[in-house]
């Protein structure tokens, strides 16, 4: 396994409702000369539902994934496990921290893993793909790969809750900037806004207004985000969580009716934005799976065709 290939843990949502995230991340990493290799036979991270039922079982679920990732790299070095969904990222990271060092929890989980022939040594390091893009691959290489600068595109970078909370590993807890720097590296302009890490209401309500317990609360939370981004002149919201992305793009018509103000702002994965700037085929980036997608005209530098998807993907 080359040093440039990362073990990738997609999680259930980034393979389902948010599959555009996995598709675009794979394409972007490949374009930058790094590989993402999906963890074999990964299981659900337990989300926030398992800790509400049995916390040790939640640790066991995540520990199995970490142990499987370690098995792929037999030598003694640390193993990076990339978790794209911020819900999974938090769950895996919490497990990594809970099992670091000896203790009753570590003993119990270690015993449970041993019963099914697995061993967690503590070599796995849970990381987010954004961390890799900014701090390992580097903004210089990202900029160098741009063939279609997204000049003039104003992007509201939305980090969601769980990337920097409760653990801020590679970015500031109150004002994270890694996505803003990535967006700037591909020629677009990140807007300043205060709701970068405000909850969108999508995570616990699993699908927000669709099946959630409190559609009203969820809509209020998402509406505040969408409205603020619109007011500050953003053309687009860039996200890094499948639940946020779906929650923000899926119910804009319903929110417009509910709150009496028109809303129409695409919510995309930041990797899709990067991919477009790299000139990767939109089909590979999962752009066709978005409900809203458009780039402003000036962005079409060097490409005479209007931005892909046009208006037909919108509702």
């Amino acid at each position: 396994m080359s040093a440039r290939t990362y073990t990738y843990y997609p999680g259930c949502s980034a393979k389902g409702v948010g599959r555009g995230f996995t598709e675009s991340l794979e394409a972007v990493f490949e374009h930058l000369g790094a590989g993402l290799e999906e963890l074999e036979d990964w299981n659900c991270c337990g989300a926030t539902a398992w800790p509400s039922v049995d916390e040790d079982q939640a640790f066991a679920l995540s520990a199995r994934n970490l142990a499987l990732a370690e098995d792929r790299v037999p030598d003694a070095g640390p193993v990076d496990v990339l978790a794209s969904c911020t819900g999974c990222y938090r769950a895996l990271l919490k497990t990594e921290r809970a099992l670091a060092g000896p203790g009753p929890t570590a003993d119990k989980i270690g015993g449970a893993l041993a019963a099914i022939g697995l061993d967690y040594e503590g070599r796995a390091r849970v990381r987010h793909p954004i961390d890799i893009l900014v701090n390992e691959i580097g903004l210089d290489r990202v900029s160098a790969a741009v063939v279609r600068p997204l000049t003039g595109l104003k992007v509201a970078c939305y980090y969601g809750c769980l990337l920097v909370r409760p653990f801020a590993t590679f970015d500031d807890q109150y004002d994270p900037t890694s996505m803003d720097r990535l967006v700037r590296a591909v020629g677009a302009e990140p807007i300043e806004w205060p709701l970068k890490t405000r909850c969108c209401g999508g995570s616990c309500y699993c699908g927000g207004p669709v099946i959630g317990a409190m559609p009203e609360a969820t809509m209020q939370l998402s509406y505040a985000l969408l409205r603020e981004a619109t007011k500050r002149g953003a053309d687009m919201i860039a996200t890094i969580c499948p639940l946020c992305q779906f929650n923000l793009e899926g119910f804009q018509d319903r929110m417009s009716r509910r709150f009496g103000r028109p809303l129409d702002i695409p919510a995309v994965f930041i990797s899709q934005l990067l991919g477009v700037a790299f000139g990767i085929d939109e089909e590979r980036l999962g752009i066709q799976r978005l409900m809203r997608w458009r780039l402003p005209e000036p962005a079409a530098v060097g490409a005479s065709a209007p931005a892909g998807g046009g208006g037909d993907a919108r509702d």
Partner: protein
Amino acid sequence: MSVSFAGLEQEAQEAQASPAPEALSPGEGSAAKRRATRRKKWRPVKDQSKFEAQLDPGFAAEIAAAVPGGELLHQCIQCGTCSSACPVSAYMDLTPRRLIAMTRAGARDDVLHSVSPWVCTSCYACTVECPKRIPITDIMHAVRRISLREKTYPRRFTTPVMTQAFVEMIEDRGRSTESWISMKLYLKTNPGRLLKNAGIGRRLMRQGRLGLRRESIRERGKLRALLKAASS
């Protein structure tokens, strides 16, 4: 049990707008009624611990033991930063600050019947903002665990149902399938919403984002063995 605990308890009860009617003057009564109407969406927290004798002084220790760092809850200064940082405290019957106060007071029954832990989105804003570093979100999860165990969770509220449906699905298949879990939930809680959201479901299917095929891992038996060995 100290007097100040009883005072806190009383404050909480008054705010919940269901004190004994004879204790109120007409003016207070109508204010209480207004508050009650405003909150009628949720089942009000049962006011069972009206007297000190009904409090459970061991409850705070029970919660503290269930959460790493949980003993910090004794250091709460009731500043309310958690409640103001919380994006959904307006939808709770006990705001995070009040939930901590009632936990310390030993109002076990009221806390376990509260909807607040189920309204919590687990966004960790309270935990990060707390000046005393109390792991409030983890405390919410601990309250959820006890209330599931003792079946005091609010009925007809979607989150507990979803939590259990989700857990069953993962126990069985190892991964979650969004279409199945939403179907299951609709049928269990509110079949009418199924129709309302059929449109968006169809659209997601057209986009290839929602499939009916059930996701599964290969080593399902081993996963079940792992969960069994790790259960507490």
